[in-house]
């Protein structure tokens, strides 16, 4: 095969660790410089909070810029999303430190400042939560045998419901069909509970499967074959719901994080306007 010049792209995850190392180093340096700078200003009767506020503002704008980068995936000079993600995570942590420095490690007094602080901390907390779940949940998803696209779940669910209905109707007797209508159909027709969405577990699936298995001695041979198929479909449905719950959490977390970021940006802008307006010629 003639492959004249392959595009040069990183293969090794050596770059993976380098990106993380450099991001950590850069943000640590930024925080250290800011701490030293504010201390230096405070010792000279200046306003260290002015410097920390400006740096914090710049960091928050940079953090919000990650969203903008995603809008321009084809612009090469913007760098890779992976680099941005690393800087985003480390700058997010740095922003929490800078925030503490800015408010003097004490709870603000004014109503607006409190609102701003709550907004900032909620955004930061949602970011940390996102970081944690984005590291933990993918592994749980990949441990499920079937991999599905979130948007395909309703379609697949409808297919499984139809399939289960068809299986339950098989066979010569009515025992399995009656059990299905009374105890299993709701599992396929209704959405899962909020408790399942928050902490998905296989409890309900196991209960339904155990119920079908307990029915076994009352079934005819064709029904028995159908019941085994039905148990398999129940498990598939449970896997599907599990995927939906976990993927939903990963998606809705991001929506929440973005909404909180929007609120924070508005409040922070107002804060800057007020600070500048009431600066009294300082700064």
């Amino acid at each position, binding site marked *: 095969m003639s492959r004249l010049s392959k595009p040069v792209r990183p293969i090794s995850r050596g770059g993976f660790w380098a990106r993380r190392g450099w991001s950590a180093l850069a943000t640590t340096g930024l925080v250290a410089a800011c701490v030293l700078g504010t201390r230096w200003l405070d010792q000279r009767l200046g306003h260290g909070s002015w410097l920390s506020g400006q740096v914090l503002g710049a960091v928050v704008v940079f953090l919000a810029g990650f969203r903008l980068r995603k809008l321009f995936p084809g612009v090469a000079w913007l760098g890779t999303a992976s680099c941005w993600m690393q800087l985003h995570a480390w700058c997010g942590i740095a922003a929490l430190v800078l925030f503490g420095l800015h408010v003097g490690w004490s709870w603000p007094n004014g109503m607006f400042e409190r609102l701003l602080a709550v907004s900032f901390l909620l955004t930061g907390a949602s970011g940390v939560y996102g970081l944690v779940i984005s590291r933990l949940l*993918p592994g749980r998803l990949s441990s499920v045998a079937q991999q599905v696209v979130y948007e395909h779940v309703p379609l697949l669910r409808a297919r499984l419901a139809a399939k289960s209905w068809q299986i339950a109707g098989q066979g010569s007797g009515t025992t399995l069909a009656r059990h299905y209508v009374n105890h299993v159909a709701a599992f396929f027709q209704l959405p899962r509970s909020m408790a399942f969405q928050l902490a998905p577990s296989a409890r309900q699936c196991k209960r339904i499967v155990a119920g079908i298995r307990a029915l076994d001695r009352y079934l005819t041979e064709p029904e028995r074959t159908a019941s085994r198929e039905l148990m398999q479909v129940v498990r598939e449905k449970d896997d599907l719901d599990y995927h939906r719950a976990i993927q939903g959490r990963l998606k809705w977390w991001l929506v929440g994080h973005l909404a909180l970021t929007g609120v924070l940006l508005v409040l922070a802008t107002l804060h800057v306007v007020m600070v500048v307006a009431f600066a009294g010629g300082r700064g």
Partner: protein
Amino acid sequence: MSCRSINTKLSNPSLTIPSTRIDRPQRWSEPFGDGLAPEQVATLLGRDPFCRMNPAAFSPSLPLAGILANDCRLVEYQPGDVVFRQGDYGNSAFLLLDGRLDVVMGAPGGDEEHAAGQRTDGWLARLQLLIGLAQADENSGPGLSGKTGVRESSTGPRMFVQDVPAILARGERQVLETGQIFGELAAINRAPRSVSVIAAGAATALEIRWQGLRDLMQRDAALRQHIDQLYRERSLETHLRETPLLRGFPPETVHLIAAGVEFESHGAMQWTQNWRSTAQSDIAGRILAEPLIARQGDYCESLLLIRNGFARVTRLHGNGEQTIEYLGRGGVFGLRELVHNCRTGEQRPWQLSLRATGYTDMLRIPAGLFERAIRPGLDPAQLPPPLAPLKKDATGGSGTRRLVGRKKGLETGLLETIVQQRLMNGTEAMVIDLNRCTRCDDCVRACAATHEGTPRFLRQGLTHGQWMFAQACMHCADPVCMIGCPTGAIARDSNRGLITINDRTCIGCGTCATSCPYSNIQMTPLMDRAGKPVLARETGLPVLKAAKCDLCIEGQGGPACQRACPHDALIRVDLTSPGPLQEWING
């Protein structure tokens, strides 16, 4: 293929076509071109090499005259016509019947230099492109840098060069005389044309599509030997020099090796035909069903080089065979045993087995030739380590012993998945680490944003453990999708070796989508600026175009999907050897 496109197709009632009954297509339902008239076939049967073929050797269902009538066409060339260009993919070979053709060798401004001249990876090159100091060259190909044009011919639009003498005067060239066969290697091996051929004067050639050539070679030993001889004369030494093991060997040594090499082919060239049906069957049985090239424990009498295709390296494990590795083009098998035997004087057998996966073309270098010509030239530092000593049992005989020490490689299950699903055909496969992927779909959105709103891949596909091989064009080493494209719209980009589709020449026949063994090409409706499907004037049906991943070839910085992944979960990786994936997985 986007969900949107699929949904569009499903929801569009105009696409619901009532089923019709047609005759089952036969081998010669669609002859090559217009086919040949009986009198033309009769004339050809009286000419060399067909007059020397034995018609009785051909089966009644595939007679020699039938092959000539249906798998061949006559092509007339005018002065300046380009028969084919270096780097092109072709499905046919040629027999020059009349006139003279010139082979333009790719030496001046060859592939490597040509590519280097257009490299857009470096920041300097990008800056040059940006400020206009350089421009992307739409040159017709190495060795044909003269002014070109296109004119109509009996076989469709044909490229011609205007200043033939200038091109012929430039660099090395060869002349093809009447009766010579050319272009056979690219046709048989699905490899790119290694030279360009142009007509200095009027000429007539018989173009034989590869199916016909294959059948002729199967039935006529003389032709087969002739083709092998042509390979030996024209390409073998080049191929040997490109093999990593023999790189840097003096020309006379390579010549000596070429003279002693034996050719072998294993498996079926049409591996995609029954592969889908067997891909899901029992792994142990499938391994055993693969043609055995070398058996573990047998006398190690030669060094095996892979010329084309892929082979599976296995070792006996219990009652079955375990995949250890796979080898692609340029791969070497048996080196460790031969080096060990040369060093120690022992006669250690093959330590592993080698099986053909799909279709494998091999070069066999006899042990004697290896010892005489190759081993003295090998760098001692790069020689494989000696085999483990044989353990002696209580009676002094050889007892159980460890086989070849295993390199730290890919996990067996993953290896077997890659081999079994023929993923090792991919030079740019999309692999997703599901333990890192948050299913955010940033990759899909990035792809859509760089392709007019329609993503060119599906973030789903074959999975093994935490690894997903997503449904994105893998830009295969053996691009079977290119076989049969009637307009040549799907072709390998001569600069980067990627498989691209030219939207302007794609007629939406769907041949490539049907041929792709991995279902990575989709037929999508062509949309107008308002986002509505474009309809064909005659039928009122949407105009379809083949769509697939182009690896963002027109953009800078590489594929958008990989660049858009915030979690380093997605990579485009060359699977033709296990190394790159191994490197990525191990970090």
